Structures are given as C-alpha cells and as structure tokens.
C-alpha cells in the first residue's frame, strides 16, 4: 500500500489531470444521455407504435463495442483520435441506448388508476406528465441511470488502448514499466469514482422521491 501511495504523490500532477478528465467523462455523458432519453422515452410511451423500432435501434446501438465507437467517431466528427470528446460522445450514445427503454418502461409502469385520478383532479396532459407520471417513474429511471453510470465508468479506461488520456493511463504506465502499484492505484481510483458517483445518484433519487420515505413511516 505504501508503494501505491508513493506512486500517487510522485505523479500527483499527472494523476489529478487524468482524474479531472475521467470525472467529466463519467458525469457529462450520463447527464446528456438522460436529457435526450427523457423525451424519446416519452414518445415511445405516448405513441406505442414507436416503441418497438426505437428500442430495437437502441439495442443495436448498445451492441456496438465501445472501442469501435471511440475509433469511428473521429472519422465522423472530425475530431482528433486522442480527443476525449470521442469518448464522451460514445458514452452518451450508450447511456441514451440504455435509458430510452428504461424511461418508456418507467412511464408505462405508472398505474392507470393514478393517471385517471390525476385527470379527474383536473390536471392537463402536460401537468399530469410532469407532476404525476414522471415523478412516480423516478425509481425505475433512477435504477437505469445507476446501471448506465457504473458501466460507463468501467468503459472509460478502454479508451487507453488507443491512448486517450484519463485514469486508464495508470494501467498503461504499470504495464510499460512492469510495475504493480500504478495499476492497483488505477483500480482503486476507478472503484472509488464508481462508488461516489453511485452514491450521488442514489441521493438525487432520494431527494426526488420524498413520498417513498413518507410511506415507510
């Protein structure tokens, strides 16, 4: 453990730079993917005939290996191959592919009695969506967001194979110098990042679903 800590202090400036890149690569794609998935999922739910084509397209997107997307995107976007933006866009695509279905299923899981009650209370369609249907779907959507977030974090390091600089570089450094400490340090940092991210999302879900605690009392 001391050698791992020493490696950290010796290479602190590099590692903090990589950490920063990794953090935004973990956070931004999940947020952007969710923002795009919400209206798409709503469309799948509102117009049922769009559900099969949209979700199967999403399923195919999800089968594309991450490394392949990291490589193809520079050709499409005109970015440099080592630009972290490629990784961000690829992870956004995965988040979107995963969440479209989750959002549609989440909105669909709200009981019809609840929706009927809301309508009877005078909610318009839009009010009912934002004040009733969406909040009730938060636990389902939130569970999907957690899966997307954790798997994204583990995908980020794959970009090191083509040399995109983020915390995965610690693994490469360990391999090049035939040393274990940087690799262990990298695994610990990715692990902590995944946990912190997961806890933050859990807290957000908790804040958004106050009725769950009210019911538990």
């Amino acid at each position, binding site marked *: 453990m001391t050698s791992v800590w020493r490696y950290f202090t010796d290479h602190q400036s590099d590692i903090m730079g990589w950490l920063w890149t990794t953090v935004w690569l973990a956070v931004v794609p999940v947020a952007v993917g969710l923002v795009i998935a919400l209206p798409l999922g709503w469309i799948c739910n509102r117009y049922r005939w769009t559900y099969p084509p949209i979700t199967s397209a999403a399923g195919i997107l999800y089968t594309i290996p991450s490394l392949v997307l990291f490589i193809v995107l*520079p050709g499409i976007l005109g970015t440099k191959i080592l630009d972290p933006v490629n990784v961000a866009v690829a992870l956004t695509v995965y988040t979107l592919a995963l969440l479209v279905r989750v959002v549609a299923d989440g909105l669909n899981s709200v009981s019809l009695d609840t929706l009927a009650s809301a309508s009877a209370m005078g909610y318009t369609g839009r009010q009912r969506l934002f004040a009733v249907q969406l909040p009730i779907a938060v636990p389902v959507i939130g569970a999907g967001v957690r899966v997307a977030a954790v798997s994204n974090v583990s995908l980020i390091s794959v970009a090191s194979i083509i040399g995109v600089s983020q915390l995965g570089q610690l693994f490469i450094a360990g391999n090049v110098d035939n040393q274990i400490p940087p690799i262990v340090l990298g695994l610990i940092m990715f692990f902590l990042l995944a946990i912190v991210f997961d806890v933050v999302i859990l807290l957000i879900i908790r804040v958004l679903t106050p009725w769950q605690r009210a019911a538990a009392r």
Partner: protein
Amino acid sequence: MAAGGGAMMHLVASDNGIPGLDRVPVWFNDPSNYWGPDGLLVRIRDHLAFTVVIVLLAIVIALPIGLLIGHTGRGVVAVAGVANALRAIPTLGFVLLLYVWLSPSITSRMTIPYLVPRGGLGAFISVLIVLVLLAIPPILTNTYAGVQAVDPAVRDAAKGMGMRGGQVVRKVEFPCALPLILSGIRSATLQVIATVTVAAYLPLLGGLGRFIADGANNLTNLQFGYPAMVGAGLVVALLAVLVDGLLNLFQRFVVSPGVSGRFSTKRTEPTIQAAMEAQLTN
C-alpha cells in the same frame, strides 16, 4: 455518409491528421487484407475461438451455481452484490494487473492452436480469467432469476409427482428458466465479443483487436493505420450483431414450445384496463 460525403471526409481527414472514413471501403476492397496469418479471416477465427472458450467456461461455472441458488433461494443477496461489483471492474486494468503479476511466473512455452502462440500463455491466462469473470454475472443472475420466476404451482406439481430435488431442477426448473438463461448467455457473449478486443493490448494475442492496438501506433498508414482500425471495429460490431441473431434463432429451437408460448391457443382479450389505457393516451 453516402454520396457527397467523400469530399467532406477528405476535408475532415486533413483536419484531424488521420485518413478519412472514405479509406475504409478501400481497405475492405483489398484482398491482401483478408488472407495470410495477419489477415482478417485468421483474426476473425481467433476472435471467435477465444470468445467460445470464454463463454463456455463462464457457463460451466455460472449455470450450476445459478441453478443451485435459484433452487434453494439461499445466497441471492450476496451473489447479486458480487455480480454487480464484477460489472464495475475496469477490464483493461484488471487484465494488466494479472498480466504484470502472473506472467513472470508463467514460463511455459506451450501453444494452443488458434488461441495461444509461443510464449503467449501468460497473456492468454490473464485475459481468460478476467473475461470469464466478466461473462459470469449476466449468466448467473439470469439463471437464478429464471429459476425463481418458475411458478410455485408447477414446482409443487413436480414434487407431488414424486420428483427429487435434482429432478425438479433438471426436468422442470431448468427448461422453464431456459429463455432467461439463454438471454443471459446472449448478453455475456456480446460483451465478450466486444471485450476480446482489449486482449490485443497485450503482446502476442490475436483476434480483431490486434488491428486496433497496432493501428493506434501507426495512424496515418493507409493499410495498417486508421482505416484498418475502423475496418476491424466494424467487423467486431458485425460479428456481435450476427452472433446475437444466431443465438436468438438457437433460442427458438431449444426452448420448449410450452414455455415460449409459441403454440399457445390462449387469446388475449381486450380488458377494461386496455380500454382505459387507450382513452388515457389519446
């Protein structure tokens, strides 16, 4: 990306310093990229051989454990937790950790056709362990979830007919859980096909990832650089889609018609619920 894309691609290529995507069809049209020991065909074969070995090993480990905990209902929470933790592992880091740690002590020069070249055993074992661990969670969780989802009445009927625990598992729970088990195997296979590319970061190992790892050091080369990386990447994606389709077909053949409901005579009747739904969504 069809007509009119060529000129734009060219412009883009001079922008980011790599050959444009218009070089990819050119790469695919060159027969010399297909044949020989470093050609596409050999690497596709190696890629699939590696995938099959990994998935089979994962099935051998995950299926009995999944059936057991599904049948007994014990240890579900612990296994679910471990399976989720395995999912979060950065593959590359774990592979390199094992490689740096194990390979000095593996001195055997053993070779295995299609899988291990001379001196590649250390790299092979490192990748094998990590990818098997990666393939276990989807199979394991789907297996016990499938067994637990079996209608208790069906299970009781089997016991009432005098079946022992083992017979109930083999003749009732396994066939009933098969659709879910197979879909777990499908997602594990897809994940492995995609992740075997990571193996190529290690020296000596083949598979389609070789084009990608080697190309990254030689980006502008028209034969071995960026066009080869994209080409190999597209082949990986294509393999994933093909294998997914094949396994889907396989599933239709092996799942009992009584379970999949293909020959069901039941007709779903419009319910009050459906009518309400129709009204609410309009």
